[in-house]
C-alpha cells in the first residue's frame, strides 16, 4: 500500500495544474493602442500645432520636458505621419485646428479606467487644457482604458475648434498608447518608438484626408 501511495504522490507531483504560456516568446515590439472620437470629422481639420518638446511624467510635481535631439526623433516621426495624412503643421497655436500633446511616462506606473471623475485632475505635471486656450477641462468621447506603465508614450490629439463656451471642455479626438516589454525608466528605444508611432497612424486610417 505504501508503494501505491508513493506512485500516486509521484504522479500528483507531475501536476502543475495550469501551465502558463511562455511570455518570453512575446515580441519586443511595442504594443500600439489607439482610440478616437467616432463622431469627429477628421477631414474637416487641416492644420495642427505640436509643441517642440515631449512632456516627461515623473515623480516630480513640476513638469519636465525633453527638448532638442532627445525629442526630435519622436516629433519628426509625428510630423512625418501627420503630413502623410494631409495635415499642415503651424506655429500659430491660436489658429490651429488640432493640437498634439506627447507625454512619456518615465517613473510613474498606475492603471486607470476613465469614466468619471477626471482622473488627471490634480495629477502633477500633466498637460493642462489652459495650455491650449480658454478651456477648463478635458472631454473624452470614449472610454479610455490603458495601463500607464513605465516607458509608455502617450499622445493625445485635441480639437482646438472645441467650443469655449458652456462646459468649456477640450475634446480629445484621438489618442495613442505605445509601450513595450523592454521599456523602463533607464532605457528609451527610439527605433521601437518611431516604429510604434508609424503603426499608430497605420491603424488609424480615419485620420487620412
Amino acid at each position, binding site marked *: 500500500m505504501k*508503494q*501505491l501511495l508513493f*506512485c500516486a504522490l*509521484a*504522479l500528483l507531483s507531475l501536476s*502543475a495544474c495550469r501551465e502558463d*504560456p511562455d511570455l518570453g*516568446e512575446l515580441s519586443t515590439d511595442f*504594443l500600439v*493602442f489607439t482610440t478616437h472620437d467616432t463622431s469627429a470629422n477628421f477631414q474637416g481639420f487641416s492644420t495642427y500645432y505640436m509643441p517642440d518638446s515631449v512632456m516627461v511624467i515623473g515623480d516630480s510635481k513640476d513638469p519636465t520636458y525633453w527638448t532638442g535631439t532627445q525629442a526630435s526623433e519622436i516629433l519628426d516621426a509625428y510630423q512625418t505621419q501627420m503630413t502623410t495624412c494631409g495635415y499642415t503643421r503651424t506655429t500659430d497655436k491660436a489658429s490651429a485646428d488640432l493640437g498634439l500633446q506627447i507625454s512619456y511616462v518615465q517613473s510613474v506606473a498606475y492603471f486607470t479606467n476613465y469614466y468619471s471623475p477626471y482622473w488627471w485632475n490634480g495629477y502633477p505635471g500633466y498637460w493642462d487644457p489652459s495650455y491650449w486656450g480658454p478651456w477648463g477641462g478635458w472631454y473624452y468621447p470614449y472610454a479610455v482604458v490603458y495601463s500607464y506603465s513605465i516607458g509608455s508614450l502617450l499622445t493625445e490629439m485635441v480639437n482646438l475648434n472645441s467650443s469655449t463656451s458652456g462646459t468649456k471642455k477640450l475634446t480629445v479626438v484621438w489618442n495613442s498608447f505605445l509601450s513595450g516589454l523592454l521599456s523602463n525608466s533607464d532605457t528609451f528605444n527610439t527605433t521601437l518608438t518611431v516604429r510604434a508611432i508609424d503603426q499608430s497612424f497605420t491603424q488609424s486610417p480615419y485620420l487620412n484626408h
Partner: protein
Amino acid sequence: MKRIKNTRFGAAILIAAALLGFPKAQAQEYSTNAYANIDWQFNVPLGASFADKASGWGMNFEGGYYFPNNMGIGAFFAYHTNNQYIPRQTFAINQSSAVTTDQQHSVYQVPFGVTGRYRFVDGNTYSAYVALKLGTNYARISSDFYILEAYQKTWGFYLSPEVGMTIHPLQTILGLHMALYYSYATNQGTVMTFKTDQLNNFGFRIGLGF
C-alpha cells in the same frame, strides 16, 4: 519552466522505480472490480481552437467499480492546458479602438463528471474497455499580451468517448494504463475580439492503473 521539467523528470523516475520495485507477493491482490487510473495526457485541440498547439500539460484522475457483467461506473477529474502564440497583428477592440500586439493564447480545461465503462477484455494480465464520460467542463480562456492578460471563465457540458486498456506485466495490482480519447465541450467565450465556440479535442493518456 526549467523547474517544472525537472520536477516531472524526477516524478517519472520515482514512478519507474515504484513499478520495478513493486513486490510480486501482492500478485493476487489486483483481481478486484474496483479500478483507478492516474494518467499523464497529451491533448490535441481540433478545429478553429482559441489555442491550437498540442501539449502534454495535463493529467487525468479516475476511479470506479465494475459490476459482474463487466459494466462499470465511476468518476473522473482532469485538467489540461493548451497554448498558442499569436503573431503580432492589429485588431479592433470596439468601434473606436484598435490595438497592435502579439499574444499568447491559452485554454485551461478542467472537465469532471461520471464515467460509464464496458470491459470487453478481462484477462489476468490485461483488460480493455470502452468508456463514455459525461460531465461539466470548466475552461479558462485567456490572452496574454504586453504586461496584461484578458481572460474569461466559461462552463460547458462535457462528453468524451474513450477506449483504453490496463496491463499488469508484473502480476501485481499496479499496472500500466493507456487510453485514447476524444472530447467535446459546449464552452463559449470571447476574449477581446477572439471568440470560442465549443471545444473539441483528442489525445492519449498513459499512466498507472490499479
